[in-house]
């Protein structure tokens, strides 16, 4: 890779051992993908729950902090592995909380802003068209590329940390114009009516599109879906297919008339078929709204559904630390918790030791309106069930879908 003077100085250790380790890691990745050089980024976003890091990853962060590493651009965090205020609800063991605290301390020493959110495009700062960023959550990346017109690859935790420390990323993938053009065309004849249906549709597109380098062009969505719908749509597409960008006319800034032939047609029957794969049980143990974290508007809708109910099963609603104080102040949290639910902040269910939570609480059959969540949780031993927010709330009240 071609390095400028600053990058050469980093590599030589003139800006400290943390920056040296960071850029050497990035050069390895860049050379793997034949990157010609680096591109400066305006911000970085780090996925770093400690179930993923383990003790080894936390020690690595602590070593960077000991080496007096400091981020060079605004660098923020994806959800943590717990909500420190709700440890007893989750029944997280002490070692989990201790490991999380160590990670938080190391991040703070590096100058990282502990935003703990996977919806930073709704709560912190959405990137602008053409802005190069280093985002570390698949749902965030696909939203940034497809809705904002910004430019990011999937930057996994170590690489996002490195991007924060160096202020740049290797120039490959979605930083290059040639990878941002549609590669596969979908004709959609179904208009989702709920967030779970938007997620199911996104999941289908992701499953069919193939792999990270596929860029679906989606025809048939005539009205702007709105931010929460696109959040679930993109997050599910990224989860089911590892997709980082799609084109949708009227939504994607770079969308243009598509010259590709239609490869896949998706209608109501295909969406129902996917939903049916996650409707294998009626009895439920827990209801979870998470993945991605809920916006203020989703919490508003959920609170309206909780009004006057009394739950017989746990209901967890997970949001960001930026939204939680507003939800508290506006009475949404109180309404949900009066019904027996819990509003948690700064975590995401699947990133919070999902296997340990299941064992500690006896949870197996989990109802949610998140297509992303049902796609993930099978591997953690859950029987995940996909339904609308309305049906999930009813299930918390009745114990069954």
């Amino acid at each position, binding site marked *: 890779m071609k390095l400028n003077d600053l990058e050469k100085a980093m590599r030589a250790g003139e800006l400290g051992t943390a920056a040296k380790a960071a850029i050497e890691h990035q050069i390895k990745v860049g050379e793997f993908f034949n990157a010609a050089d680096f591109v400066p980024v305006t911000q970085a976003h780090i*996925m770093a729950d400690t179930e*993923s890091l383990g003790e*080894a990853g936390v020690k*690595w962060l602590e070593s960077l902090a000991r080496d007096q590493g400091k981020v060079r651009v605004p660098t923020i965090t994806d959800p943590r592995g717990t909500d420190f205020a709700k440890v007893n609800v989750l029944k997280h063991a002490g070692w989990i909380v201790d490991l999380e605290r160590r990670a938080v301390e190391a991040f703070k020493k590096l100058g990282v802003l502990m935003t703990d959110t996977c919806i930073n495009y709704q709560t912190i700062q959405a990137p602008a068209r053409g802005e190069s960023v280093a985002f570390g959550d698949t749902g965030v990346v696909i939203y940034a590329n497809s809705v904002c017109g910004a430019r990011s690859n*999937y930057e996994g935790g*170590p690489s996002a940390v490195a991007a924060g420390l160096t202020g740049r990323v290797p120039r*490959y993938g979605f930083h290059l114009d040639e990878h941002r053009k549609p590669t596969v065309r979908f004709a959609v004849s179904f208009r989702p009516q709920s967030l779970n249906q938007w997620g199911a549709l996104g999941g289908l597109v992701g499953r069919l599109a193939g792999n*990270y380098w596929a860029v679906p062009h989606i025809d048939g969505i005539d009205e702007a879906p709105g931010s929460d719908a696109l959040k679930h749509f993109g997050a599910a597409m990224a989860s089911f297919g*590892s997709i980082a960008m799609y084109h949708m006319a009227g939504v994607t800034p770079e969308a243009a008339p598509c010259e590709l032939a239609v490869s896949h047609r998706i209608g109501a029957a295909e969406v129902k078929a996917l939903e049916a794969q996650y409707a294998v049980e009626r009895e439920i143990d827990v209801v979870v709204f998470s993945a991605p974290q809920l916006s203020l508007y989703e919490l508003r809708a959920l609170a309206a559904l909780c009004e006057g109910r009394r739950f017989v099963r746990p209901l967890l609603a997970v949001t960001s630390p930026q939204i939680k104080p507003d939800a508290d102040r506006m009475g949404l949290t109180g309404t949900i918790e009066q019904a027996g639910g819990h509003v948690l902040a700064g975590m995401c269910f699947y990133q919070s030791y999902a296997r340990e939570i299941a064992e500690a609480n006896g949870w197996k059959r989990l109802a949610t309106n998140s297509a992303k969540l049902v796609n993930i949780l099978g591997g953690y031993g859950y029987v995940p069930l996909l339904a609308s927010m309305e049906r999930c709330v009813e299930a918390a009240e009745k114990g069954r879908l």
Partner: protein
Amino acid sequence: MIFTARHAIGKCVRGEALVANDGFSARYDLDRIKGVFSRPTHKLAGQSYVGRILVLDTAKGGVASSWMLHEMATRGVVPLALVLNSVNPILAQGAAFGDLTLLAGFDADITARVPNGATVEIDPAARTLRVL
């Protein structure tokens, strides 16, 4: 048989291939404590991945694998190498961070060309996989 990849990283390894035409994500697909594929719908469900060369179709899922490959390596509950038809940045970043051998990008479907259980040798410098 020798197959050449477009992308490679890591050190030379030799071992038993575990092959399936399915995806790979450390978070979605693995029980990383027991060292087995745990996603019920995965074609390798229930099988141990520890010390084996995984030959799979493509990277799936989220970003956690970049941390998890490193964490798994420190406990010795890790594949010997990953071989994929196509790769996303996460597995490349995870391989770079976790010092894991990774080969990706073939002209043919590599999962159809490498017999399950075969002994294979990977040379990242030459970007080759050889079936012994």
